[in-house]
């Protein structure tokens, strides 16, 4: 991550930001490979730190570090707008997505379409496909005794399933994944305009064709939907479908990586699930609490005092979902993984009107994956001498996780 790219400009500290709140934190920095992703984020809750800190990186922004505030900010769209969901703020001009960047009431009709497309009923119907795909991917490398989990499984299951739901060829995943990467973890190799254009050139012909010849896929359903009684424009359809692609290609992938890194290093936890598969559903909930990985901003709507902090209209607050489930004010010994833990509120899927609509699909994928993997490969480890590679950004992810087992 080159400091030279214009992404990483530092800005001056505004007058209303108290000096004790200012810290040195770059959302796109890549810490040393030995660093634990979650402990790295959790340092923001270090002793003596104020609950809201401010960093001059990426245009300058606040960071909410405590669970309760994180949840409140996501839930309260009257005080905290979603109009900017990328940092630095200029990136939002080049990359517009729906309905993530809309506030109510404009948000609702678009969200309704997604709610129906990823509903409990739809997810239940997808279970056999998820299971079939999971088993075939595992069986492809099981006898070999090793795999690179990120590229041979984590990237394939959710992405293939998702591309099937939107009826796009599975081969296109490489191209689409590369574009999504540049939204969530930009490395300076493409401008935001180029990223947007890349999605546009790919998606627009598909969407125009589906308008003419609709199928039963998710994109066709979106296009058939009504927005307050009128049809969706081409531009809206593009922004909606691009968002759904980005979200579908880069999150379950990441959770899978982190939870397998954990299970590879923690045989006792693995054995609990192997011995009693009924523990898998509560384990999924605990993994979701323990391994959140998305951090997006909200924009302050008006000058105000909030939890004793002075915010000015237009201030950006980065709201890391990581820091709710990992907050010791919300959970005792939050870094411990305990499948018997009683799990209340966390913000892994966000909160409020924008709460992740894919949360049920994610849960189904994680549960089925654990059932099928652990019954086939109950014991595995990280390949000796290798360190898994993790990338940091708006969505944290594991890109290299070499696993070995007795074939």
């Amino acid at each position, binding site marked *: 991550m080159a400091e030279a790219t214009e992404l990483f400009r530092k800005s001056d500290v505004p007058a209303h930001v108290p000096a004790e709140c200012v810290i040195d934190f770059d959302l796109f920095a890549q810490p040393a490979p030995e660093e634990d992703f979650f402990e790295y984020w959790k340092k923001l809750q270090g002793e003596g730190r104020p609950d809201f800190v401010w960093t001059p990186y990426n245009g300058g922004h606040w960071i909410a570090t405590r669970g309760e505030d994180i949840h409140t900010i996501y*839930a309260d769209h009257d005080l905290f707008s979603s109009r900017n969901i990328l940092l630095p703020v200029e990136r939002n001009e080049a990359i517009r997505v729906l309905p993530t960047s809309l506030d109510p009431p404009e948000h609702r009709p678009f*969200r*309704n379409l997604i*709610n*129906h497309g990823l*509903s*409990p*009923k*739809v*997810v*239940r119907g997808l279970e056999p496909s998820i299971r079939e795909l999971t088993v075939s991917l595992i069986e492809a490398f099981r006898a070999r005794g090793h795999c690179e989990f990120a590229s041979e499984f984590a990237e394939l299951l959710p992405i293939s399933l998702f591309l099937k739901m939107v009826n796009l060829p599975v081969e296109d995943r490489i191209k689409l994944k590369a574009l999504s990467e540049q939204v969530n973890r930009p490395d300076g190799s493409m401008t935001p305009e180029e990223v947007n254009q890349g999605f546009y050139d790919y998606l627009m012909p598909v969407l125009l064709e589906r308008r003419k010849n609709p199928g039963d896929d998710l994109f066709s359903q979106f296009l058939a939907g009504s927005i307050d009684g009128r049809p969706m424009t081409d531009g809206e359809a593009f922004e909606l479908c691009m968002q759904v692609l980005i979200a579908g290609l880069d999150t379950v992938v990441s959770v899978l990586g982190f939870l397998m890194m954990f299970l590879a290093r923690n045989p006792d936890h693995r054995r609990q699930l192997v011995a009693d598969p009924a523990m898998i559903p509560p384990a999924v909930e605990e993994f979701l609490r323990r391994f959140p990985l998305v951090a997006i901003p909200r924009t302050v709507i008006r000058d105000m005092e909030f939890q004793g902090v002075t915010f000015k209209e237009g201030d950006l607050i980065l709201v890391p979902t990581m820091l709710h489930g990992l907050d010791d004010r919300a959970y005792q010994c939050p870094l411990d993984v305990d499948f018997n833990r*009683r*799990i*209340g509120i966390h913000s892994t*899927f966000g*909160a*409020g*009107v924008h*709460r992740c*609509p894919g*949360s*049920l699909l994610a*849960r*189904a994928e994680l549960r089925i994956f654990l059932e099928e993997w652990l019954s086939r490969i109950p014991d595995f480890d990280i390949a000796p001498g290798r360190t898994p590679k993790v990338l940091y950004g708006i969505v944290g992810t594991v890109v290299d996780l070499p696993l070995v087992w007795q074939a």
Partner: protein
Amino acid sequence: MVKLIVIDASGAEHILDAEAGRSVMKAATDALIPGIMGECGGCLSCATCHGYVDEAWAPRLAPPSEEEQDMLSCAVDVLPCSRLTCQIEMTAEVDGLVIRLPEAQF
């Protein structure tokens, strides 16, 4: 406080004292009752607070709004007595309300 009885899919009865004005979903998820999620926090976006209203109580509740009916169509194992419980407010009029939970929310 208003009494709310939630019967989960295993048949276990949970007797709750709900704050008046709180939704059935909030009262049940606050108490960490198994089998109800309330993923979206009550903004009619997820259909995971699905419950069955015991027959005797149905006439005493306001009928579901159009938006609720629309989201209810997203839920699994829907019956005529199905409701999204984030839309049912606990009031003195429904003191003792009985809600049964489905086998699964998704």
